């Protein structure tokens, strides 16, 4: 079957599945799944650039997601002026002296010939810098964290609209990727994977522990929304009229009781808010898909694939492998960073504790692989399927377990245990899907298509 046919069929099946959830469970659940599918699609398109286009094994997807989320906080939260006045200057001094230390260290590394002398000077520079930073850091952070610790206790953000953070999240993730690339690119794929995994873990421990920056595990809640609130909707005239019209009671002669009406109101408000998000997310997905597809079909995309398929040959043709890798790593991470900011926007809160590699790195990997590495549309369908299974595996396995009651007593310890652990079925399912796809259909659902002009 042609790729087009496969794409049409798989997307139709997906639409059908979401519709089934909509009619069967509730439209709120269906749209919640749909929205996260869209965010996952952006993440997997970003990873697809790194893995599918260029063959980079990035096991640090989580780092880009998390820094995107942090950016959403830093852009949208209103500045905590008191914290700035007590500790802002110390933090600035720390940042400046960090930059100075690094510059000095690099200068010494470059200017002084290799030898014992260089090692000693570098050690001295780092030590002096460290002690200096440490002094101001402790002063600054303890002052900041003492400012209303239950409510703020951090520097806050810029107080800009949160939509702006989607772009800024991409830029921040690109910056981080540049740094990671400086350290880890040029290593062989396994080493690169281990190094990026390590960096992402460190990134999360920073977010968890640096309370002055992100409130740490105390979480930042109540972020501004780019879309209206449910409560506001339920009070506005046009919305009430719309719901009445939808239920066929526009002439005022309400056939529905007031209780049913209130329920319908709540449901519709939730649905409308989620639809607003969906529109925003679909726009982002389409824009990125457009750029990604054009890039893949351009000479640049051909060069990337050539590097992926045969590094030696590509470098013999004069391509600078490491800097091309760095380029695509940065672009891919930026896309993932955008998704990270979108996710935090959707959640309305930033919870560093929720970032775990299985969910934010390896699940994205499953999406890209089963969708079809190197195919952007494939990444999208991959993320839809994967996220759908990930979410729906839980209710389905709980339902399955509860249907075991003809063999097991409702209160038997085994039954209770099964009910408790049923959600973890999704892990097994994900692994199974990944292994099966890799084994029997390594090209994924939508295989990478070589352009016609080959």
């Amino acid at each position, binding site marked *: 079957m042609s790729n087009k046919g496969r794409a049409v069929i798989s997307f139709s099946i997906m639409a059908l599945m979401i519709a089934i959830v909509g009619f069967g469970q509730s439209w709120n659940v269906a749209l919640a799944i749909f929205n996260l599918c869209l965010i996952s699609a952006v993440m997997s398109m970003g990873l697809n650039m790194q893995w599918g286009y260029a*063959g980079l*094994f990035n096991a640090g997807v989580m780092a880009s997601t998390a820094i995107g989320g942090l950016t959403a906080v830093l852009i949208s939260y209103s500045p905590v002026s008191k914290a700035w006045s007590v500790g802002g200057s110390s933090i600035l001094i720390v940042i400046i002296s960090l930059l100075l230390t690094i510059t000095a260290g690099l200068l010494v590394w470059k200017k002084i010939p290799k030898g014992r002398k260089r090692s000693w000077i570098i050690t001295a520079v780092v030590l002096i810098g460290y002690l200096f930073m440490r002094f101001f850091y*402790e002063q600054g952070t303890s002052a900041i964290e003492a400012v209303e610790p239950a409510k703020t206790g951090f520097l806050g953000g810029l107080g800009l609209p949160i939509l702006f953070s989607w772009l800024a999240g991409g830029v921040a993730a690109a910056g981080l990727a540049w740094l990671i690339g400086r*350290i*880890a690119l040029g*290593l*062989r*794929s*396994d*080493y690169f*994977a*281990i*190094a990026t*995994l*390590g*960096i992402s*873990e*460190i990134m999360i*421990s920073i977010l*968890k*522990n640096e309370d002055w920056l992100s409130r740490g595990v105390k979480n930042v809640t109540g972020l501004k929304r780019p879309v209206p609130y449910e409560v506001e909707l339920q009070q506005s005239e046009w919305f009430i009229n719309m719901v009445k019209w939808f239920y066929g009671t526009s002439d005022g002669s309400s056939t529905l009781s007031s209780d049913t009406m209130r329920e319908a109101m709540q449901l519709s408000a939730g649905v409308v808010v989620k639809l607003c998000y969906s529109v925003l997310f679909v726009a982002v997905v389409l824009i990125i898909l457009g750029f990604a597809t054009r890039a893949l079909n351009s000479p640049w995309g051909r060069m990337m694939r050539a590097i992926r398929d045969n590094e030696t040959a590509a470098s013999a043709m004069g391509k600078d492998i490491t800097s091309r890798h760095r380029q695509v790593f940065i672009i891919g991470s930026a896309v993932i960073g955008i998704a990270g900011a979108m996710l935090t926007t959707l959640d309305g809160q930033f919870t560093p504790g929720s970032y775990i*590699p*299985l969910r934010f790195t*390896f699940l994205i*990997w*499953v999406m890209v*692989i089963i969708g079809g590495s190197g195919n952007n549309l494939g990444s999208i369908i991959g993320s839809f399927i994967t996220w759908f299974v990930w979410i729906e595996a839980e209710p389905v396995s709980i339902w399955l377990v509860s249907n075991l009651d003809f063999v097991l007593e409702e209160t038997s310890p085994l039954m209770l*245990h099964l009910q*408790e*652990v049923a959600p*973890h*079925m*999704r*892990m*097994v*399912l*994900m*692994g*199974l899907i*990944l*292994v099966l796809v*890799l*084994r029997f259909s*390594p090209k994924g659902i939508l295989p990478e298509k070589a352009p016609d002009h080959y």
Partner: protein
Amino acid sequence: MDYSTDMLNALVLITNYVLIPSISYGSQLALGAVGVTLVFGILRFANFAHGEMMAFGTMVTIFITWWFQSMGVYIGALPTALVALPFAILLTALLAVAIDKSVFSFYRIHKSKPVTFVVASVGVMFMLNGLVRILIGTDERIFRDGQKFLIKAGAFKKMTGLSEGLALKQTQVLTFVLAVIAVLALFWFLQRTRTGKAMRAFSDNEDLALLSGINPERVVLVTWIIAASLATLAGVLYGLDKSFKPMVYFHLLLPIFAAAIVGGIGQPLGAILGGYIVAFSEITATYAFKKFFKYLAPDNFVPDGLAQLLTTEYKFAVSFLILVLVLLVRPTGILRGRVL
């Protein structure tokens, strides 16, 4: 108090809080890293599922331990888990071989790129992770029994008259002893037996080994059995020493990889060295030295803060820093392993 007592106190302090924990944690890392380095050297890929394999082995041990305990099988002062260990090793090795036959052998036959193996190992990681959680749940399990301390802090203080106590847990000694036995057995196997020699030959030069008639499937089989056994041992010792929590084992992956790479890929001895280096640096960098300085330095030189380089939450950063430094400065590792 005279100066020599202070010296002794400082020494006991460091032994108690840095040296002993580093040695037991290092032994656990070393056992894990030897497994990783063997798989790395012979199958030529980084096995991301190694941490989950440790968790699986530990889980099996816990189940068997519970079963023994319910039947009233105890071995005096030693933890019952030691009796359960051989059975758990057998089961985990079976699992590892089954996984190899069903997942990895296909890619070996097709001579797939190393990175395909890594992706497959991610799939295996997911499955094992889910399996462990389904079977035993996500709660913390403490399965240590028998005598807890060999030397108690209070008794030590009374005996020596020092103000610092020294506590030596039984599990710490057990860890070290069992690690030494396991490593000696492994080296005897690798140096003296035919299969061990075949494994080393295969690791050094695959083509040459094949030409001389070494059966690759057999080498791979033995590798998995050894890796799974060491993983189980490492996991159980870690679980006995601290406690068993399924999520912890994934986080051990990074220090274990760091240890394997620091020591040189494909070098079991290097992996052991690497394990101790990583453990020692992690614990030293996150230990608060304030009290230590209080004993040694003159009163007016004692630091105000905790004199702690990094807070404990940044342990990862230490193993990662070591990893990056080694990769940048000496990619072959300390013992000149293979550069992949």
